[in-house]
């Protein structure tokens, strides 16, 4: 078996079941120079090292190009400067802050279910997985809800722009949407300065960073990142989770009958599905990982999904166990760049699973449908579900 067998570049082909590919790579070529450039890491120990050693593997603008004109904050800023932004941002996204949003998220989830519960079918992706995180985001930042459609277009324009055949073409294709995002937030910041209110954007405008307020550019660079990091990833997670649950009715029944298992089930589905399958870093010095020399300037791709199925950490990694303990999964990455929105994501996922299964406990993917997974982040292009209509 050659080293390239078993490897499928997820930035080119969307994968319904990436776990066997992770396993093949881990076993045959755990540090693997992909045909198209990046060095792919699939062993948990190497991935953990890459995430922690920000002095060797930077998360700066050279690691990934999304059409942004300045570094996204805080993702593309490395320690030690990174810490000053996280000190301002982290308090806005703690589990405690997020818990206060639970009633609003619960109401929103139910409103969305109201939209299709009587119909006996829905496109879960378009009618739930996409609008839920986008609407939560608009509420969180205090932006007009009627801007939902625009946001979805821009987010898609940056995350998966059309007409991209090679990674090098991504930035150029994403640039027009990126321009709209900057322009929109210029307006939103002006509006929040004129009319301060209780939301995350107002909090950032008033923030004190080592005695200084955030500059206009810093506010824009944070907002831009929020939009591309916080919307698609929860959509991906919802799609992955509901496909899994539609295909595993016994597991779904566990959630319906024992909703107290939800927090732990969310962690396990995050582990197994790893909706954000990998992250991007760039070597800032010559280094060797697992016997493979990596040159300064080379991009690396730590596959979080592979870390999450590494038997060195997880007993029976191929068994999905909603009560798994311990479960030190890395679906939110790790080290200084640990996903800022992880607690918001957990809240949205838990509430969505709880309310959906309370109201629609039985569903299946419409027979005959072939799901198409998107490249990069793992969403599906459509997820047609059918279910019995509850009689009141």
């Amino acid at each position, binding site marked *: 078996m050659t080293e390239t067998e078993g490897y499928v570049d997820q930035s080119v082909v969307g994968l319904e079941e990436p776990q066997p590919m992770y396993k093949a790579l881990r076993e045959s070529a755990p540090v693997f120079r992909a045909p198209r450039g990046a060095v792919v890491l699939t062993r948990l120990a190497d991935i953990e090292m890459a995430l922690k050693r920000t002095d060797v593997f930077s998360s700066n603008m050279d690691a990934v190009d999304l059409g942004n004109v300045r570094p996204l904050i805080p993702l593309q800023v490395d320690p030690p400067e990174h810490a000053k932004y996280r000190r301002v941002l*982290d*308090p806005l996204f703690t589990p*405690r802050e997020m818990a206060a949003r639970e009633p609003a998220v619960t109401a929103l989830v139910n409103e969305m279910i109201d939209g299709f519960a009587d119909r006996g079918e829905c496109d879960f992706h378009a009618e739930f997985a996409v609008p839920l995180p986008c609407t939560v985001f608009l509420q969180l930042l205090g932006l007009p809800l009627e801007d939902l459609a625009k946001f979805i277009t821009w987010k898609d324009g940056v995350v998966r722009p059309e007409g991209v055949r090679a990674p090098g073409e991504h930035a150029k294709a994403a640039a027009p949407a990126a321009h709209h995002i900057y322009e929109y937030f210029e307006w939103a910041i002006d509006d929040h300065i004129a009319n301060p209110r209780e939301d995350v954007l107002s909090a950032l405008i008033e923030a004190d960073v080592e005695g200084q307020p955030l500059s206009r550019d810093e506010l824009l660079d944070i907002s831009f990142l929020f939009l591309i990091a916080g919307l698609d990833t929860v959509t991906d997670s919802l799609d992955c989770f509901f496909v899994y649950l539609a295909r595993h009715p016994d597991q779904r029944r566990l959630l319906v009958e024992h909703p107290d298992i939800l927090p732990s089930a969310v962690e396990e589905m995050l582990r197994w599905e790893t909706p954000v399958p990998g992250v991007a870093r760039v070597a800032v010095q010559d280094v060797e990982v697992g016997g493979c020399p990596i040159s300064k300037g080379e991009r690396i791709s730590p596959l979080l999904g592979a870390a999450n199925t590494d038997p060195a950490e997880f007993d029976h990694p191929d068994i999905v166990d909603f009560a798994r303990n*311990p479960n*030190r*999964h*890395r679906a939110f990455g790790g*080290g200084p760049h*640990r996903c800022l929105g992880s607690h918001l994501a957990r809240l949205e996922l838990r509430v969505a699973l709880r309310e959906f299964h309370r109201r629609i406990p039985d569903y299946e993917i419409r027979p005959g449908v072939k799901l198409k997974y998107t490249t990069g982040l793992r969403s599906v292009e459509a997820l047609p579900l059918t279910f019995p209509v509850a009689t009141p």
Partner: protein
Amino acid sequence: MSRVSVDAERCTGHGRCYTLAPDVFDADEVGHSIVRVDEVSGELEEHARLGEQNCPEQAITLSGGTRG
């Protein structure tokens, strides 16, 4: 009896410990972990171990105790 400690240099605020064992761990204002009870035994020790084993950064140490 075990002694619980959190390495503030390693903790990045995953929040797993204080979610799983809120009687042993708490969050500071940025959501990083702080120890609420540093000498634990019995049930509290079990809870502390739950936090320790689920920390993705391996920032939690239980020392001086016996397993079981």
